[in-house]
């Protein structure tokens, strides 16, 4: 794969579609969660209003350069992650910028935003921001582990690190999906997935009243808007990776929308049912319940 | 006879060592070592003695030609003489030490001289 100028508008198109889908999907998810609580829930266009309002706030403050750059890192991480992975299988148009690197790039680029955001939050000087980061980083160390093991198992299974090749290997019927050919890896990955979606029981990082939402305590107006934009893109980008690795990818946008929705729903279903974990509890939980699946997956491939 | 001398010599050595180890008075130790030295000298002579031979002095009684068969080996005796001299030297030195020790510390009990240890 080589770079072509045409890929830029194509990528922007992907970005646009995913952003809008993310806006609506997130609202839908919020509505579903509200219905579980027998509430009516937010309007489906609520995210647009929130985002717009935050961009439209007139005043803002800054604590320094890193504080300013934090949200930029965050959103660049989300956008980058989305664009480094081919969105639609078999489509030259929506393979985005995946010529730059393979699965490993996606895997590690996840941390680009996290790190930048953590630094920005740190410069605000707010202790709660630091506490949130401390919790988030602690949790991610073990939440990522089952996922990493699963990725490794999948890479071994298909003998490639190229996302496109992994998706290609799963074509020809849903029984060819990794979900069925390597269930342990998928189990491990999906348990890890719960930990990375910032939903209960793993959302103590953002504990709203205890540490007023943790790392973003000091963020507001356009900073927050940037981060919200990322909130719309990043989970989708992440789910795209899962979808490509474990659920056969998507050959068209409708399939993409459906698969992403259902994968997202996994964390939602768990989230509306379970209460919150302490950090050390979630660390132990991943080690005890998720990692063994990953180990089995790696050993059995 | 030689065996008696040997046995006596060893006995003296043992007595000497026993004395040196059981008495903590320095002068007694020196005496004990002198006894042991005497024993050693006795052993030296005893080992060198050959039955039925005469003293290794070449005079009228012993012809030079027959000396090799008639006299005992003179070497051990020479050794004993040297050993006695050296023993005397060492004993003298020990006594000197005993004197100096007594002058400086006022005691001759060896178990009191343990400030250097470990």
């Amino acid at each position: 794969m080589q770079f072509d100028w045409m890929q830029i508008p194509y990528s922007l198109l992907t970005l646009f579609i995913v952003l809008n889908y993310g806006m609506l999907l997130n609202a839908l998810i919020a509505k579903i969660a509200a219905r579980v609580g027998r509430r009516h829930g937010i309007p489906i266009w609520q995210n647009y209003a929130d985002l717009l309002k935050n961009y439209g706030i007139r005043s803002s403050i800054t604590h320094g350069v890193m504080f300013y750059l934090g949200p930029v890192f965050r959103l660049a991480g989300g956008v980058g992650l989305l664009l480094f992975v081919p969105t639609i299988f078999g489509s030259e148009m929506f393979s985005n910028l995946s010529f730059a690197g393979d699965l490993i790039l996606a895997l590690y680029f996840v941390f680009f935003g996290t790190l930048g955001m953590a630094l920005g939050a740190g410069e605000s000087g707010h202790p709660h921001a630091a506490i949130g980061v401390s919790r988030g980083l602690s949790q991610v160390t073990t939440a990522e582990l089952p996922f990493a093991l699963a990725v490794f198992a999948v890479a071994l299974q298909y003998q490639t690190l190229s996302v496109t090749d992994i998706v290609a290997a799963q074509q020809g019927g849903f029984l060819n999906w990794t979900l069925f050919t390597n269930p342990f890896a998928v189990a491990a990955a999906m348990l890890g997935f719960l930990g990375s979606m910032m939903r209960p029981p793993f959302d103590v990082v953002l504990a709203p009243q205890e540490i007023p939402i943790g790392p973003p305590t000091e963020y507001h107006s356009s900073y927050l808007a940037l981060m919200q934009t990322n909130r719309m893109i990043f989970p989708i980008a992440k789910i795209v990776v899962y979808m490509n690795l474990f659920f056969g990818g998507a050959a068209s946008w409708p399939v993409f929308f459906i698969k992403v929705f259902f994968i997202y729903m996994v964390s939602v279903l768990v989230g509306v049912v379970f209460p919150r974990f302490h950090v050390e509890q979630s660390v132990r939980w991943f080690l005890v319940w998720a990692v063994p699946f990953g180990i089995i997956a790696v050993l059995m491939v | 006879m030689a065996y008696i001398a040997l046995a006596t010599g060893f006995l003296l050595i043992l007595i000497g060592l026993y004395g040196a180890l059981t008495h903590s008075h320095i002068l007694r130790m020196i005496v004990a070592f002198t006894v042991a030295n005497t024993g050693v000298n006795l052993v030296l002579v005893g080992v060198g003695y050959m039955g039925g031979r005469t003293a290794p002095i070449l005079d009228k009684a012993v012809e030079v030609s027959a000396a090799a068969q008639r006299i005992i080996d003179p070497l051990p005796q020479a050794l004993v003489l040297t050993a006695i001299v050296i023993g005397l030297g060492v004993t003298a030195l020990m006594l000197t030490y005993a004197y100096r020790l007594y002058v400086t510390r006022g005691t001759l009990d060896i178990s009191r001289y343990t400030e250097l240890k470990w």
Partner: protein
Amino acid sequence: MKPELEKRIVKGPDGFEFEVDPIRDYFCETPPTVMTAAYSAIIEKLFNWARAESIWILGFGTGCGAIEMRPLMTPRFDAYRYGVQWRPTPRQSNLFIISGYLSVKTLKRVIRSYEQMQNPKYVVGLGSCTINGGMYWDSYNTIKRLDDYLPVDLYIAGCMPRPEALLAGIVELKKIIRAGKAEGANIYAEKFEWYKANQKRVIHDWDMPDYNW
């Protein structure tokens, strides 16, 4: 002035001594400025719509009326339908509901929190106490007129007003916002000295900068 805010002489690691004045060194002392609409009218209209449809309330119950806010989150009232949600930090909130009587002690915190909110921001006085002191009209330590201390966009009368009233108030506020008339933040900046003088008149242990960024 609390001891931790007093000026002090500090010795640096290299032995050099210098003065630290916490109020000046720790806090930004720039006064607030009037921030008018920065974009063309149509964009501002869009923004006003968005502001009206996305009301983020500061989760700070200042008085007894706070109890009336909670039911709004429940299935029965479900304020989320109106684009309303509660935020734990003033930085991200637009609406400050002063829920009932406001003691002088709380006023200080309210001022600080209000100033930490970003422009545009709105204040709703909930209950009679915020209008004229209500049943505490002769109390020694509650304020009587919220208006003297913060620019209030809307009052909801009653003692206590029911959640429905609150909900109705919010809908009313949305209309004001959409009309572009909710400029409390700018009024506060304009009449900053007047507000400060009023605030300082009742708050005797003033130990913060004049404007809390």
